[in-house]
């Protein structure tokens, strides 16, 4: 059976557009609001990434750190994250959700226990920032057995040889990091150059769904729309921070922002 992530990409291909993939942090700014946000933005987004916050992130920039901080201050726990997914999936069982975070939370929960929770709440995929290839092989296989997508990352520093191995071991989606940066950095490489790298990777295996993330905003998204998918994260986290500052409703604001992002890639 095809995964919901694979189906989402197929659907977008039919519509001749990239998949729009959002990233928000579970519990930002409250548990309820983050669920409401998912519900709203899932009308426009094809795949939803949901961060589970860690307080010592070594690869996140200021915006996502801020979101994680707000979530943790609200007392978000893994069990709440799974609750949010479960509630979301009740209404929208076919919309893929990918959890993203750092390995220590999985390590403490126990890999098997964590995956059991993923399965029962309806998580479709995982991105673990600090579990690179080949150390991730064991865990990635466990995911596969449970039909959960383990999504690997590629970076501008990844050698061709290494890319081949990672792609060979990959599931339904691969994530290309657009530039040397933490999340939320300014796009310091031209979209043209990013697409050049992207195309080189695609050539290794054209069938694999390859998405681009890091530094993408409403300003740059349309110039990258030939990719299979585009991830927007920090811009959404920043939007939440701004609405809170201005005492606006983050849910309606995010709905609008994601709607606008979608308009730019169709």
């Amino acid at each position: 059976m095809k995964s919901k992530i694979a189906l989402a990409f197929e659907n977008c291909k039919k519509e001749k557009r990239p998949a729009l993939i959002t990233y928000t942090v579970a519990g930002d700014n409250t548990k309820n609001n983050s669920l409401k946000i998912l519900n709203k933005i899932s009308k426009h987004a094809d795949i939803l990434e949901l961060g589970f916050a860690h307080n010592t992130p070594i690869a996140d920039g200021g915006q996502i750190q801020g979101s994680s901080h707000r979530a943790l201050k609200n007392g978000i726990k893994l069990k709440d994250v799974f609750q949010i997914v479960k509630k979301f999936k009740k209404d929208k069982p076919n919309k893929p959700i990918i959890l993203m975070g750092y390995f220590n939370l999985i390590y403490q929960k126990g890999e098997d226990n964590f995956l059991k929770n993923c399965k029962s709440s309806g998580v479709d995929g995982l991105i673990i920032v600090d579990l690179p290839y080949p150390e991730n092989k064991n865990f990635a296989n466990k995911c596969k057995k449970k039909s959960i997508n383990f999504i690997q990352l590629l970076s501008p520093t990844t050698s061709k040889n290494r890319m081949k191995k990672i792609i060979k071991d990959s599931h339904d989606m691969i994530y290309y990091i657009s530039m040397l940066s933490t999340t939320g950095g300014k796009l310091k490489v031209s979209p043209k150059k990013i697409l050049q790298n992207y195309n080189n990777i695609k050539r290794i295996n054209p069938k694999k769904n390859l998405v681009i993330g890091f530094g993408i905003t409403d300003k740059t998204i349309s110039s990258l729309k030939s990719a299979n998918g585009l991830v927007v994260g920090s811009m959404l986290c920043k939007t939440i921070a701004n609405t809170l500052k201005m005492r606006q409703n983050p849910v309606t604001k995010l709905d609008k922002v994601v709607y606008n992002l979608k308009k730019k890639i169709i």
Partner: protein
Amino acid sequence: MKLKIKKNKLLIDQHDKNFMYGGKFGGNFIPETLKKPIDDLTILFSKLRNNKKFLKERDNYFKNFIGSPTPFIKLENLTDHLGGAQIYAKVVSEANGGAHKIYNATVHCLIAKRARKKYIVGDTGAGYAGKMLSMAAKKFGLKCKIFMGAKDIKRQRPNVEAMKKNGAEIVPVTTGSQTLVDAVSECMRYWVSNCDTTHMCVGSTVGPNIFIKICAWSTAQISRELIKQVLEEFGKIPDNLKLINCVGGGSSAAGFWNEFMDTHAQFIGVEAGGPKKSKLHAAPLTNGSKIGILHGAAQYVIQNKEGQIGSTESISAGLDYPGISPLHCFLKDTKRARYTSASDEEALKAYQLVSKLENISPSLEPSHAFAEAIKLAPKLKSSEIIIVNSCGDSVKDKDIIKLKLGSYIR
């Protein structure tokens, strides 16, 4: 499975193919972007450590820039005062810059030059790692940036001044507890974004495996000198010899013990117990913390059930860190070393006693080690020998000491 240390093999090399010690400590839990720079550094270092020319260069800088050997002295007055074991000190604070962090900093700059990097970045807590990196960077013509928690910038002023004088840019870190743990995170994040032009130095035996290796390998100079000095003084390695060292990240202890690994010398590591009345501490080994992942490596680390890293509190900025080197986790589980902690109050008292009686004045980090020596010595026979690594000078802690004790002596 019972963990064991292998003989005739450097501790840093006793890892498996995943860079884990004892199958569970260390490793490389890093973002994909850092894989290549870390692989490159790993290959470069494995070449350099076997390269005669590089070793000669290192030894030359250790001798003429850092100053070796650092003194090995008997603390006659302290020994008399306590009336038990004979207490000695390895006065590593006599090294250029005033602490052991100079060894790691110098080697990293030498490596950065070989890697043709123009920029070097590092983290610091007590400010020594930063001060030394700024000194070495200046010496080798590298542009230097130091990440330091805003709280530490306030409490370690003399070292901050020194960094500025050496021309380093200091980046205050205002996230989290604004101490060492946050400085290391921020430094790693910076490296993720700049690894193509910039070399990173991690200030202790923590982080991804290669940084643990480079740091312990560099700091091993302390015990290379000491084992000679001990043999000269006693004609042999004394029975029941105890080597006491404070542990924050664990670099000074790793360097102090390295050459004695295959001998019968006993190792005692002293963690920061924090204020007596506080539940916060920085003693993951003493207080039975669970294994978790911090800064790219699996280690005993202070954390909650969920895996969020816990806050710590210590009067000593250099020890105020929730994790501990995977090397020390391995030494603990193999029972090769024993770990205990000293409270803020005990460390302050130890500083005071040593500074009053002797010509040396340890900073608050080694004062934790002295506190353990002071506890132990009276219970031991006068034929027994304790050596404490006095790896920092109290000058940097002048403000805190004045505040806590009313006056500062040196």
